[in-house]
């Protein structure tokens, strides 16, 4: 049997202590401004609602490439993240830009479907032009101890994605329980071929938190030391203000190092974060506190 997880136990007290020290720090002036712009470049601007329409997705794509009408030297966001049936719309809207199109797949958000349907779901997203696929793991199988199934499923989806399409594996940490489970699921996902591991769907509370992210970052670090391979990280859900996002950057830098401070290896899954970051950037530049009234709707 392939050994695809290690039963490593997580030091809960240690994790929480690290995080509490990170969250007491704050960045100032130039470093803060650079950090804010870096956050923008790492955002997967997301809309995953039942009521998504073509126009809503087109509007989001426009926003992805036109973050603010006055501030110069702003990056585009990293990607736009949509449901599979909106991939074509997003691809058309983002033609000629560097913004990637990510599609959720595999019966998002519950993941409760057969492997055949999940594979078809993924294939369709890719045929329609998705650059990245965000899949969900089968949490039910995970809790029943069918780790092989979870592993095989991720591997099967990665096979569909191939080398060109990057696969983000959503663990849905809010449904996994304690840190040990999160560590185990992270290892299964990484060993099965995930390019990114991602905390949450955004549909379950709690979504991403700093301690959970740190547990996952530590897993990525151990895997890197063992194999030399880099795996990306994407916290998603609940990160809606700049201060918190900056703390995530600090956590990444200090756990994994500067290589990961790049949209290639680190993403934020968020919908309202971009506006808060923009408000902070304008505040930094003008010295005036800003109002939501003067920023586009999410």
């Amino acid at each position, binding site marked *: 049997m392939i050994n695809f997880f290690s039963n490593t136990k997580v030091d809960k007290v240690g994790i929480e202590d690290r995080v509490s020290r990170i969250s007491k720090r704050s960045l100032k002036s130039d470093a803060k401004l650079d950090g804010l712009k870096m956050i923008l470049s790492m955002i997967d601007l997301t809309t995953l609602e039942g009521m998504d329409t073509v126009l809503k997705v087109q509007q989001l794509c426009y926003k992805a490439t036109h973050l603010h009408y006055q501030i110069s030297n702003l990056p585009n966001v990293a990607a736009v993240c949509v449901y599979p049936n909106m991939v074509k719309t997003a691809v058309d809207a983002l033609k000629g830009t560097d913004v990637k199109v990510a599609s959720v797949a595999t019966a998002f958000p519950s993941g409760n479907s057969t492997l055949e349907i999940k594979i078809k779901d993924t294939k369709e997203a890719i045929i329609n032009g998705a650059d990245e696929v965000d899949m969900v793991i089968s949490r039910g199988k995970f809790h029943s101890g069918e780790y092989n199934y979870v592993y095989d499923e991720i591997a099967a989806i990665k096979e569909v994605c191939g080398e060109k399409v990057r696969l983000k594996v959503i663990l849905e940490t809010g449904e996994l329980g304690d840190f040990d489970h999160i560590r185990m699921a992270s290892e299964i996902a990484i060993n099965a071929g995930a390019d990114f591991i991602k905390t949450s769907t955004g549909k379950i509370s709690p979504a991403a938190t700093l301690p959970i992210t740190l547990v996952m970052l530590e897993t990525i670090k151990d895997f890197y030391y063992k194999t030399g391979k880099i795996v990306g990280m994407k916290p998603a859900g609940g990160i809606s203000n700049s201060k918190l996002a900056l703390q995530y950057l600090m956590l990444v830098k200090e756990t994994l190092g500067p290589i990961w401070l790049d949209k290639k290896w680190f993403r934020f899954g968020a919908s309202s974060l971009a506006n808060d970051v923009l408000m902070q950037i304008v505040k930094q530049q003008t010295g005036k506190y*800003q*109002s939501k009234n003067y920023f586009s709707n999410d």
Partner: protein
Amino acid sequence: MSERIKVLKTYKIFIDGKFPRTESGRYYQTKNNGIPIANICMSSRKDMKNAVAAARKAFLGWSNRTAYNRSQILYRIAEMLETRKSQFLEELVLQGWTNKNAELEIYKTIDRIIYFAGWADKINQVFGSVNPVATSHFNFTMLEPMGVVGLITNEETPLLAIASCIIPAIVSGNTVVVIASEKAPLSALTFAEVISNSDVPPGVVNILSGSKKELSPHIYSHMDVNAIGDFSNLTNDEIKLTAVENLKRIRSFGASEISNDNFDSPYVIKDFMEAKTTWHPIESGFANSNSY
């Protein structure tokens, strides 16, 4: 037995219905004849930012309440103040007021709250209007609250001023962020305790203590503040100009104006309201056909 060491109360600030210390950790002492009276939070601009955010969040709920309900809550403030008269008296005297002046100020404050509370469900009857127009429209004007109002109180009548700035602003549905008197902040901060016990929803009133010079530029320039009521007479024109960017309305009141009984006027409420005129088409039907 040795003499007991007196414990100085730290008067905390009031944000979103809670009483936090300033996030900056700074404090100052108010003194009377060189003797420290109390420890006071020296609020930072970040406290102010949090207070404005709380006020913004509370605005929709507060302005959507019925005028009648807002009025009942304001009456409640007056009732609570009445029962805590002695504490306010003690604090004003501690800050250098004579017994008589302190008493006068307290009574005036309570009466003023009652006066303005009564206006909640009457202001639109007086200032709203149905306007004659030439087309077949029903055209009417109603006053609406402006949103978040920044208030800076005075140093001369710290209790009367805090009530005089807060009550007319919130009676119509605005929410407020107040910078308390710097030298005599005790009354304002105890007033916050009264408000917190009077059914006023969290965030409707937020009260900060600290340096007016430090805080007022940030409230004047804050893009999410819709109007300023400046009772301090300290703010210079350069700071006031920063309010232009989001077209804030600025209304200044002198100390004598506040002490005067003429302050009890619905026009003070109107100062923090915006008129909305609606053109409502009238279905003319057969009447339009000139057949009769």
